[in-house]
């Protein structure tokens, strides 16, 4: 038997854990080996006892209060939640900023519209102009033209930045339905026969504002707020361009009209009164002078 096995066997012998056969084997080993026999004899004496005077003095420092211990993963979860909340807050804040900008523009338009109505009323004009969008646009292009242009430039710059950073790709606007629609409408106005019908048609077309669907504008990422802002930018731009082009064509058409026809138009057309600021004295006087 190996030493290791003998030592383990003798331990069990001392512990009284051997069966009768193992007991005989152990006794035979002890009878044949004096050292083992002496060791077993002294076994009970070779034992150490703990020194109970040695005590840990800082137990209170080890004790804990009944607090919730957060595992490591929960700390990451909290961090992720905070980051998500901050992102949401930033998104909402940014959205509100865009909405406020849109609201500001809308209030400017509303204010101008009101002021236009009031000023016209004070002037006691017989044919009171309607508060149509052509009037509103006329006022906007007149008194607030610079503001709108500046704002349009800012929005266009922002939109260009957004398109660049977010890789949004507006569909080719040159081929979009809205632009061709406006061009066709302008052409149809210019080509119409009766001056009055021309003017009324023009007024109707100036009232026209392209809708988001007509603009046929899409982006790779459906960010609603950014989308509406970008659409508003394009709408403003198209509307302005359409009005400017229309006005120029009206000027050209007026050159072809007889003075009497123009005078009648001035008296009878509420639309023309709205265009008066834009056309008189320059265009109209020039036209009359030319026709003379």
């Amino acid at each position, binding site marked *: 038997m190996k030493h290791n096995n003998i*030592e383990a066997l003798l331990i069990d012998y001392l512990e009284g854990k051997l069966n009768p056969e193992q007991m005989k084997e152990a006794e035979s080993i002890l009878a044949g080996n004096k050292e083992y026999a002496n060791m077993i004899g002294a076994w009970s004496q070779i*034992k*150490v006892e703990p020194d109970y005077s040695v*005590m840990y003095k800082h137990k209170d*420092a*080890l004790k804990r209060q009944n607090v919730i211990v957060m595992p490591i993963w929960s700390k990451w979860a909290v961090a992720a939640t905070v980051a998500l909340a901050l992102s949401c807050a930033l998104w909402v804040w940014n959205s509100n900023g865009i909405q406020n900008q849109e609201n500001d523009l809308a209030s400017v338009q509303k204010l101008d519209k009101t002021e236009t109505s009031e000023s016209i009323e004070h002037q006691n004009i017989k044919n009171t102009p309607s508060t149509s969008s052509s009037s509103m646009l006329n006022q906007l292009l007149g008194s607030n033209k610079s503001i709108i242009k500046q704002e349009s430039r800012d929005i266009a710059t922002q939109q260009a930045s957004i398109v660049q950073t977010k890789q949004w790709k507006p569909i080719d606007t040159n081929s979009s339905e809205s632009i061709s629609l406006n061009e066709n409408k302008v052409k149809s106005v210019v080509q119409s026969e009766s001056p009055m019908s021309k003017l009324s048609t023009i007024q109707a077309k100036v009232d026209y504002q392209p809708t988001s669907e007509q603009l046929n504008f899409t982006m790779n990422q459906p960010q609603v707020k950014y989308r509406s802002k970008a659409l508003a930018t394009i709408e403003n731009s198209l509307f302005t361009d359409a009005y400017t082009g229309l006005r120029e064509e009206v000027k050209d058409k007026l050159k072809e009209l007889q003075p009497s026809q123009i005078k009648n138009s001035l008296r009878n057309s509420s639309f023309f009164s709205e265009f008066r600021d834009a056309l008189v004295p320059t265009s109209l006087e020039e036209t009359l002078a030319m026709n003379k």
Partner: protein
Amino acid sequence: MTVQEYNLSVELYADGVFRFMMKLTKQDSDSDDLLQTAYEKLWRNYSNVDFEKVKSWLFTTSYRLFIDGKRKSRTDYTDSLQDTPQIGNEDNFDLKEVLNKALEMIPAIQKSCILLRDYEGYSYDEIGEILELNEAQVKVYIFRARVKMKQILTEKFNVTGV
């Protein structure tokens, strides 16, 4: 294990673990550090530790911390005979003191087995779990440790009758 049971484990077992560490490190400050680290680990995992096994958990953790510390300091922890205490007038020692002196002169692994057996009354398989040994190895280490201690008592301390 609850927080109350954690605190109870401090009350019940901190002294035993501290004495165990004191015998292994022979340094009060080292023992203090190891004990605090073991309880810090227990606090982080107390909800996963069964209170009935917390004593064994504490001894196992503190022993492993001791071994890791020894490995980091590149000290041969299995041979503490290099740290043989200076022996003065051997005739003045009583048997208990002499046994403790002899205990300091045996290898750390044998000393750990003896301490867990004699101090804490662990069974051989429990000692094996704590020290990561099998039961037979524990028995062999304990047998050889007592043989060595008896030899030291006889040869170095002139103790007769053992």
